[in-house]
């Protein structure tokens, strides 16, 4: 007990250990937050849902915090619907059963750029006769512009940027730009102030109704931005944390303990058991680790658990087993082992309760400093296209970004966000592991 306390006090003397431990704690907090706020099923739907989950998000937009570093403030994305934003609906029913419906969406606009697109998603109820709407745009300086008229089906999407009649009416320029500019503007500067989108419609039947959601797709989105499929990267960044930590920790602990167990068995029994373990180690040395994992991934399963199992299995018989074996051969001769043997302890008991525990202190630094390698291995496999098919992970974000040429097209945030998180995770465990190594293996300290 005292030695543990001493070691702990000694660890505190290394600032790198404290930094590493704090970073690991932070990652654990993020993991807990991710798993609580976005439950597993919801994360999967958000990540793999398809168009109907992501339609509101703009495509390939950097995160919102980029505005802090730039003088030119770019517009953020937002949504106005009955649930959120400045929305009003006025219904006037007429004597013939038809009703006039006016939907107004107002928003304050203060940025220096133009949106990527604006959309209206109509949800309409009608029996036979399709309702009809006309869309009007009101600028802060009091101008009114007719945007378009359309007949609605039960689901209609109106995209400002795709309306070719509107575009030609506006002199061939993109509507989402011209609508924000002063008339005859020379520079591309939007007018700041409150804009209104007014949708006035006629529903011909007494029980028919019109509702619509206004989606403003800006040039920035959320805290992490979006990818080419309009997915919010935040989901993957948050959920990647528990996945990476779990993979790294389980692989590291599993590998080290199994290595220890096998070397203890080899050292204890000697003879052909030992020989077999030695030969397996030699064969394993020439087995190309990554290629075998690739084969497992392509031929069997890409599930992260299968890959984890294969990783551990391939990492047991490495050079480490020889180092452990040498130590066990020494411990084997200790008098307390002889005593235990004399009172008739079984082989299993000797290996598990007498030999192995002696190794544990020397194991701790390796346990921590092996984690980054496994975390990066998981990311590496994802970069090769062998990531878990369902889980959102950091490596898969990097893979998507690469496959879509993010570095060539300047979408740096897409690749840098997961890369920085990977780096923080790797660094945290490496820093702590390094300090632990110096505490537990004092020979390195004086050098």
């Amino acid at each position, binding site marked *: 007990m005292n030695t543990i306390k001493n070691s702990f006090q000694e660890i505190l003397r290394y600032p*790198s250990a404290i930094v590493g431990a704090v970073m690991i704690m932070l990652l654990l907090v993020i993991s807990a937050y991710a798993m609580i706020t976005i439950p597993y099923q919801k994360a999967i739907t958000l990540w793999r849902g398809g168009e109907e989950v992501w339609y509101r998000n703009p495509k390939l937009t950097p995160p919102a915090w980029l505005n802090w570093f730039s003088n030119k403030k770019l517009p953020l994305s937002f949504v106005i619907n009955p649930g959120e934003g400045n929305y009003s609906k006025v219904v006037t029913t007429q004597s013939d059963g038809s009703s006039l419906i006016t939907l107004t969406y107002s928003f304050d606009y203060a940025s220096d750029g133009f949106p990527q697109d604006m959309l209206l998603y109509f949800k309409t109820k009608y029996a036979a006769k399709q309702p009809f709407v006309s869309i009007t745009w009101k600028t802060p300086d009091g101008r009114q512009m007719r945007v378009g008229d359309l007949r609605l089906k039960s689901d209609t999407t109106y995209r400002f940027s795709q309306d070719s009649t509107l575009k030609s009416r506006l002199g061939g320029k993109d509507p989402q730009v011209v609508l924000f500019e002063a008339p005859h503007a020379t520079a591309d500067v939007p007018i700041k102030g409150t804009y209104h989108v007014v949708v006035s419609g006629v529903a011909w039947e007494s029980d028919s109704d019109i509702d619509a959601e206004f989606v403003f797709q800006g040039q920035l989105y959320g805290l992490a931005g979006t990818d080419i499929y309009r997915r919010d990267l935040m989901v993957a960044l948050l959920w990647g944390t528990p996945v990476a930590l779990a993979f790294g920790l389980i692989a590291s602990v599993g590998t080290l303990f199994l290595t220890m167990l096998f070397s203890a068995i080899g050292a204890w029994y000697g003879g052909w058991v030992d020989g077999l373990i*030695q030969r397996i180690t*030699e*064969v394993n*040395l*020439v*087995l*190309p*680790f*990554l*290629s*075998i994992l*690739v*084969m*497992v*991934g*392509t*031929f*069997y399963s890409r599930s992260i658990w299968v890959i984890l199992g294969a990783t551990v299995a391939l990492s047991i018989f490495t*050079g480490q087993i020889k180092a452990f074996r040498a130590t066990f051969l020494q411990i084997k001769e200790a008098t307390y082992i002889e005593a235990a043997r004399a009172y008739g302890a079984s082989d299993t008991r000797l290996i598990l309760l007498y030999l192995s525990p002696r190794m544990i202190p020397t194991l701790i630094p390796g346990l921590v*400093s092996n984690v*980054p*390698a496994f975390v*990066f291995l998981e*990311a*590496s496999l994802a*970069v*090769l*296209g*062998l990531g878990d098919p369902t889980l959102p992970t950091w490596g898969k974000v*990097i893979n998507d970004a*690469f496959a879509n040429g993010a*570095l*060539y097209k*300047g979408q*740096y945030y897409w*690749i*840098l966000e997961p*890369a920085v998180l*990977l*780096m923080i995770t*790797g*660094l945290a*465990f*490496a*820093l702590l*592991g*390094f300090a632990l190594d110096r505490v537990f293996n004092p*020979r*390195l300290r004086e*050098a």
Partner: protein
Amino acid sequence: MTAETQPQTPPGKKSPGNRTLLRVVRYTLTRIVILFLTVVVGIFLTIMIANMGGYVDKIMRADIRERITAQFMNDPSVRSMTPDERRNLLNERIGLEEQRVGLNTPFIVRAATFLWDALRLDLGQAINMTSDGGSRQVRLILLERLPATLLLMGTSQLGLFFVSLFLALTLSRQYGSIWDKLVIALSPTSSAPGWFYGIFLILIFAALIPVLPFGGVVASPPPSNHFEYLLSILKHLILPASSLILSGFFLSIYTWRTFFLIYSSEDYVEMAKAKGLNARNIERRYILRPTLPNIVTNFALTLIGVWGGATITETVFLWRGLGLTLYTAIGQYDTPVIVGDTIIYAYLLAITVFILDLVYVLIDPRVKVG
């Protein structure tokens, strides 16, 4: 390992030339035989893993079907038959050929045949991929990509080795200096693999400051002039090689510096200092010489670890080597190429281990065949 270490003998003592030669030859031959057996077992395991899902059989069947169909098409006697007759005859011939090749024989016999083919890299046809020469033979595809991988690995690993060795020696002389502390502080950065640094290098030197190419082995179209061709390859080599070097840099300096520090406190070094030998001599003959085996082991072990990591570095830089081939094969689900790539990596690893053994026996007089 069959190599055993005898009790330490003082450094500098030399055995007669012909005895050394005999020792090296005997040792080398034993190691070749043992390593070859290891490779055979390793490749056999690879095939077993691949064939657990029946994929090797699938490869062979597809190969036979294609060959027989091609023969069939060129056979004028079948033209007059009805489509049904033709199909039946084709299937019958395929069945016969499968029987001839031995697909219906017991698994263990087939595994042995395939092992023999795999050892010669005779893996039949790729499903989709072709070599630059247009061949679909797995062996040709892989051998064509091999030089690029060797070039990248050779330059980066040898560069890393000599640079960090030199810096580590310099650093061990300045124990506790600010540079020493800096290297210790930065050594955790080696936990990230080469491709990870590659991303940042591409970002900085190709995207933000466009001085170096994003990827590839040579400019497109390739320069016709030999000298310019070489220059273009070198230019494309800079970023991938640097990212591999960078990922091992601080840790290997740190490791070797620690080695040197431990060895420079040995008694015989103190003795040499007391005798008044100059610092250069002590460094070369009393520190570097005895630590050489350790250094070589360390180098070879990193090399073994890096073979895998280079796969993704190649992918990130579109460096047309074995790693990129593996990546493309995964994407196209080209199983023969994946198996072949694994086997060729196994060979490379075995060769690395063998060279390690060979260098080891040359520099360490204590190693003998046990």
